[in-house]
């Protein structure tokens, strides 16, 4: 387990909610921010703020160096070959839409197939639904095993020579399932399809290595990994990005502009139309420094341990159902559950009155809720600042909820 001292870096955790010390178990939605990230953004606005890639003045140079320095930091963080493969976006959603609209429209046609799974977040479903509708391609879903994992046999049975794009979540935001991306990528490539990875829940929690995975695109968001909101990353293999057209046009992304024709900057800037998210990228770089100092492997281990403890302790609460892989080593620090017939909103309100923040609802994964045969669930998601005491508070809160609703019912 990681040291509890990590908590002291997160000012927000040091407060009371509804008369109880805050237990934050909603990092899957967004993580909290350490002082290192808050300070980096403050420092940028106080000493460096200026637009990038233009002008000759000193502040402009400082801002450009910090912004491009952040890109190099991201490259190293995910082990990409070149900074030309790192595009800053608004977040995972924008990154995935960029692939669907740019690569997808140019390469997918009627009769082709796009393959996703039943455990995708809406942001990895709808861009492909839209692409399939526009092009006449077929959207196919890989079915899940009973424990919410993927079997490679079913992956093989679904991907065919007609498949042009396979897009799969690395770590499920509901089930916590960690998918075998490297193996699936190999299967996709055997059929000549490209592999897109939704890494939103992976980047915060495990060591990314895009060269080892050999995936063609990988998307993630800064705000789930201690960084600010509004910044995300699209990684893409250089030879693919070079052939792709930008989807946003305007300032910053152009090389030459004529009256009727224009040309684009080289990679990665041709995909970054408009003033970029400078402070966001700098905040993300500070978050990467913070996470790497602790160690992504250590963070992953910490979360596996918390998931194992949570599953064990939560299962002592009568009437509690936990969804997803039974084996904690197969899941990240995400535990989704329901308590008897009590609606997850009602569970979440009781927990909130006890200072405990969990998510309740469909978690932007309505098709998965259908697969689970429930309309909504509650979710506790853990991060590096959570402790075993947080789990004890959660379990006590669940017992209170159960007692409360068995009283009123």
């Amino acid at each position, binding site marked *: 387990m990681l040291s509890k001292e990590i908590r002291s870096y997160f000012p927000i955790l040091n407060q009371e909610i509804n008369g109880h010390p805050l237990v934050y178990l909603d990092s899957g939605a967004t993580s909290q921010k350490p002082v290192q990230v808050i300070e980096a953004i403050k420092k940028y606005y106080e000493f460096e703020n200026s637009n990038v890639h233009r002008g000759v003045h000193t502040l402009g140079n400082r801002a450009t160096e910090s912004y491009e320095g952040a890109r190099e930091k991201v490259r190293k963080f995910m082990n990409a070959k070149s900074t030309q493969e790192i595009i800053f976006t608004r977040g995972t959603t924008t990154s995935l839409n960029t692939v669907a609209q740019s690569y997808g429209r140019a390469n997918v046609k009627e009769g082709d197939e796009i393959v996703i799974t039943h455990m995708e977040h809406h942001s990895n479903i709808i861009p492909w639904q839209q692409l399939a509708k526009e092009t006449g391609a077929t959207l196919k879903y890989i079915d899940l095993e009973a424990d919410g994992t993927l079997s490679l046999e079913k992956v093989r049975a679904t991907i065919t020579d007609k498949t042009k794009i396979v897009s799969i979540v690395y770590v499920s935001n509901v089930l916590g399932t960690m998918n075998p991306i490297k193996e699936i990528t190999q299967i996709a490539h055997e059929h000549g399809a490209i592999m897109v990875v939704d890494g939103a829940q992976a980047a915060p929690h495990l060591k990314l290595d895009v060269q080892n995975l050999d995936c063609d695109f990988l998307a993630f968001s800064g705000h789930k990994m201690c960084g600010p909101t509004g910044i995300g990353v699209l990684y893409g293999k250089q030879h693919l990005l070079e052939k792709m057209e930008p989807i946003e046009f305007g300032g910053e992304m152009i090389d030459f502009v004529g009256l009727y024709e224009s040309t684009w900057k080289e990679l990665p800037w041709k995909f970054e139309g408009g003033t970029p998210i400078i402070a966001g990228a700098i905040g993300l770089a500070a978050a990467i420094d913070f996470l790497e100092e602790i160690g992504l492997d250590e963070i992953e281990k910490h979360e596996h341990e918390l998931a194992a403890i949570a599953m064990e302790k939560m299962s002592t609460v009568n009437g509690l159902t936990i969804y997803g892989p039974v084996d904690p080593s197969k899941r990240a620090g995400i535990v989704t559950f329901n308590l008897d017939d009590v609606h997850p909103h009602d569970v979440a*309100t009781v927990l909130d009155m006890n200072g405990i923040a969990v998510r309740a609802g469909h978690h932007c994964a309505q098709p998965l809720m259908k697969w689970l045969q429930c309309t909504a669930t509650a979710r506790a998601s853990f991060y590096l600042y959570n402790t075993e005491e947080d789990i004890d508070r959660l379990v006590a809160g669940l017992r209170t909820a159960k007692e409360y609703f068995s009283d009123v019912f």
Partner: protein
Amino acid sequence: MSSNNLDQLYRQVIMDHYKNPRNKGSIEDGALTIDMNNPTCGDRIHLTLQVEDGVVQNAKFDGEGCSISMSSASMMTQAIKGKKIDEALQLSHIFSDMMLGKEYDDSIDLGDIEALNGVAKFPARIKCATLAWKAMEKGVSEEQQQN
């Protein structure tokens, strides 16, 4: 444990409506049908209204959701049955004021609905309580436009 605060939200009468919903089901023939959901949480209501001569003769609901949304639907159908459209809309406005924590017209007997006034203190749950009322307003205003 802040059970006193919780008791303000989960009053006995709310739990009674949740456990024993009134007017659960669907009116088959010649009824106004309204389907509405709350996209942020997945709550869903299917409301059917039978309106004759400007009066809500019958109202039934079906759906899925938390105790607040389902009890509110049950209370709403109970409250508007036998009321003129204008009266039903007036109730809806009073209910909306109540949810926003504003002063509301208490010259009308609200009956069970009054029990939901604690929801105003739980901003995250206001949308749960208003779903059924929004569905009713939508159906009734469509009916008004047609006539």
